[in-house]
C-alpha cells in the first residue's frame, strides 16, 4: 500500500456458517482507477465487494480506506464513511419502495442533514445528468429496471464520492439496457473523478475497465494487464 492507495484489502477470509465465501482475497484500488472483479457464480465476488464497502467485516484479513481500518470502526462509523466517501450500486437498484425517485436519490444528503431544498436541487441535477429527471416524482415500482439503475447510480454519486462499488449493476438488464447503464456509470464516475470497482461476469463490461481481477473459490488473481 502506498500514499496514493484509496482502498487496500489483504488476505480476506469470510464464511457464512460452514460455507467459506472468501479464502484469502486481496485487492488494491487507486484514485480514479477502474477495476473489474470477475468470477463464476458462487466464487465470492459479491462477498468481496461487500467487504470492500465495509458492509461485512471479514473473519480474517483487513480492509483500509485512505489508511483507516474498517475493523477499528463501529458499524455506524462504517455506514457514515460509506455514505460520505463511497457510492454503492447493487444488481437490483435497491431503491426504497415508499420513497419517490427524487427522495431516493436525495437520501444520502438528507441523512447528512443537508437542508431539504438543497438536497432536492442536487438530486434533481443528478437525475437530469443521467437522463431520468422526468421520473423524479415516480415510485420505484412505476419505473423500468434500467431507469431504476440510473436512479441508483445518481444516488451513489450525489455526495461526490471518491469510490463507487457496483455489484452486477447490469445483471438484471437486457443487452441494450446493460450497455446504456454501463456507459452512464462510466461517464458519471469519470466526471466525478471517482474510482470504480465493478463486480461482473459480463466480458463486455470487464473489457471497458482499466484492470481486471479474477475471483475463484474465494481467492483473487490478477487477470490481464492494465489497459
Amino acid at each position, binding site marked *: 500500500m502506498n500514499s496514493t492507495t484509496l482502498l487496500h484489502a489483504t488476505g480476506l477470509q469470510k464464511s*457464512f*456458517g460452514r*460455507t467459506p*465465501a472468501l479464502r484469502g482475497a486481496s485487492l488494491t484500488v487507486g484514485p480514479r482507477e477502474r477495476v473489474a472483479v470477475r468470477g463464476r457464480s458462487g466464487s465470492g465476488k*459479491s*462477498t468481496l465487494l461487500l467487504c470492500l464497502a465495509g*458492509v*461485512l467485516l471479514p473473519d480474517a484479513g483487513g480492509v483500509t480506506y485512505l489508511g483507516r481500518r474498517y475493523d477499528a470502526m463501529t*458499524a*455506524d462509523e462504517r*455506514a*457514515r464513511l*460509506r*455514505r460520505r466517501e463511497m457510492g*454503492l450500486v*447493487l444488481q437490483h437498484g*435497491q*431503491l*426504497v*419502495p*415508499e*420513497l419517490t425517485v*427524487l*427522495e*431516493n436519490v*436525495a*437520501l*444520502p444528503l*438528507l*441523512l*447528512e442533514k443537508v437542508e*431539504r*431544498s438543497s*438536497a*432536492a436541487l442536487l438530486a434533481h441535477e443528478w437525475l437530469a445528468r443521467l437522463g431520468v429527471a422526468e421520473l423524479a416524482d415516480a415510485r420505484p415500482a412505476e419505473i*423500468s*429496471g434500467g431507469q431504476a439503475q440510473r436512479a441508483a447510480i445518481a*444516488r451513489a454519486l450525489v*455526495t461526490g464520492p471518491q469510490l463507487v462499488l457496483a455489484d452486477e449493476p447490469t445483471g438484471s438488464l437486457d443487452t441494450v439496457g446493460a450497455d446504456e447503464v454501463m456507459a452512464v456509470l462510466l461517464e458519471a464516475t469519470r466526471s466525478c473523478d471517482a474510482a470504480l470497482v465493478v463486480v461482473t461476469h459480463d466480458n463486455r463490461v470487464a473489457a471497458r475497465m482499466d484492470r481486471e481481477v479474477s475471483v475463484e473459490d474465494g481467492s483473487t488473481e490478477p487477470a490481464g494487464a492494465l489497459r
Partner: protein
Amino acid sequence: MRPLWLVVVRTGGIGRAATVAVCTAFTSGLLLVAVSVLRLGSGSIPERLLAPIADPGTRGGAVLGIVLAALPFLLLLDQSLRLGAGERERRFGALAVGGAAPADLRRWGAIEVGVPAAVGAVGGLLVHGGLRLLLSGPHMGRVGSVVPEQTGPGWWTVPVLLTVAAYGAWAGRRAAARAADSWLVSRGLRRPPRPWGFIPLAGALVLALVSFGGGGRTVTTAALLAAIVLLVVGAASLAPWLVRRSALRALHRPRHPAAVLGLRRIAADPGPAARAGAATGAVALALATVLSLVVDTRSSGDPDVGLVASLVTVGLVAGVALLLVCGSLVVHAVEVLTDRRRSVAAIVAGGVPASVVRRSVRAEALAATLPLAVPGALLGGPVYGWLLAGGGLVELLLVTVGAAAVVALVALAVVLAARLVGPLADAATDPVNLRTA
C-alpha cells in the same frame, strides 16, 4: 420533499400501528387492574371482591394471573411486528444501501412502533375503566368484583403507561435491528437458536426448592412467584431451540410434502413458531388446570361460586388468548409464503398441487402448537388433577377427557384459522407471480 423520518415511520402501515395500539391498550389496562389489586390493604375491604383477590394470602397469585393475562397481548404485538418482516427487510436494506446507519434504522424502528404503543398505553386507561364497569359492582352478585372499585392504580398509572410505551419502542427498535441484520446476512445462514432458556429454568427449580423447603410465608410466596416467572421466561426462551430441533427430527421420517414444507419453514425461522408454541402450551396448561379445578370443586359437593366464576374467567381469557395466538401464527405462515411467492408459484408450476401449499400452512401451525399443547394439557389435566389434587377413577377419566378436549380445541383453532387465510395462501401460488419485472 417530505421529511425523511416521517416517510420511513409511516411505511409501517396503519394496520400494524392499530394492532400495536390495541395490544398495548389491553396490556396497560390489565397491568392497571393488577396494580389496583396490589394496592388493596390487608385490612377490611369495603366492597365484595372475588375470593382469590379479597384474601391477602392468595392475592399475589391473583395478581400474577392478571399479569400473565397480558402476555398474549405482548406476544401478539411481537407477532404483529414480524408481519411484513420481509418487506421491512427490503425497505431497511434499501435504506442501508442509501447510506442509513444501523443507529438510524433502530431509531426509526423505535419511533414507528413507539408512537402507536404510547397511544395504546394511554388507551389502557379506557380498558381499565371498561373492565371495571364489566367486572365490578352489584351485578357481580355473590361472585364479587374482579376489579376493585374503591382502590385504583393511583400514581402507579404513570410508570405503568411509560413502561408499556417503552416496551413498544424497544420492540420496534429490536425489529428494526433484526431487519437491518437480515439484510447483511441474507446471503448466508441465520444463526440457529441456542438453549439459553435452561438457565432461567434452573433458576426456577432452585427457587421452587427454596419455596417448598420451608421458611417464612413471605419468603415462600416470593420464591414461588419468582419461580413461576422464571419458568415462564425459561420456557419462552427455550421454545425456539426446542421447536427447531423437533422440526429437524421430524424431517428425518418420511413425510407428506405439505408437512415437509411446513417443517422446513419452522427449521429455517423457528422464532414465530416457537413463541406461538410456548403460548399455546401455556394456554393448554391453563385450560386443563381450570378443568381439573372445576372437576375437583364439583366432586367436593359444595362448589364455591366465587371460585367457579374465577375459573371460568381464567378459562375465557385463555380461550381468547388461544384464538389470538393461533390466528397470528397462521397469518405469519401465509405471509412467509407471500414473501416468497415467486418460488412458491414456481413449484406449483412445476407440478406440486396448490393444495399442498395450502395444507403446509396448517401443517406448520400444527407442528408449532401441538408438541407443546399436549404436554401442557397433560400437566394441567391428568398430572395435576389426579396426582396432586388426588381423586378417584372418575375424576381421572374426567380430567383426561378434559385434557384431550383442550388439545382438540387447539387443533380446531389452527384448522379454522388456516381455512380462513386459505385464499391468501392460494394467491401465492398464482402463476402471475412468475412474471419478471
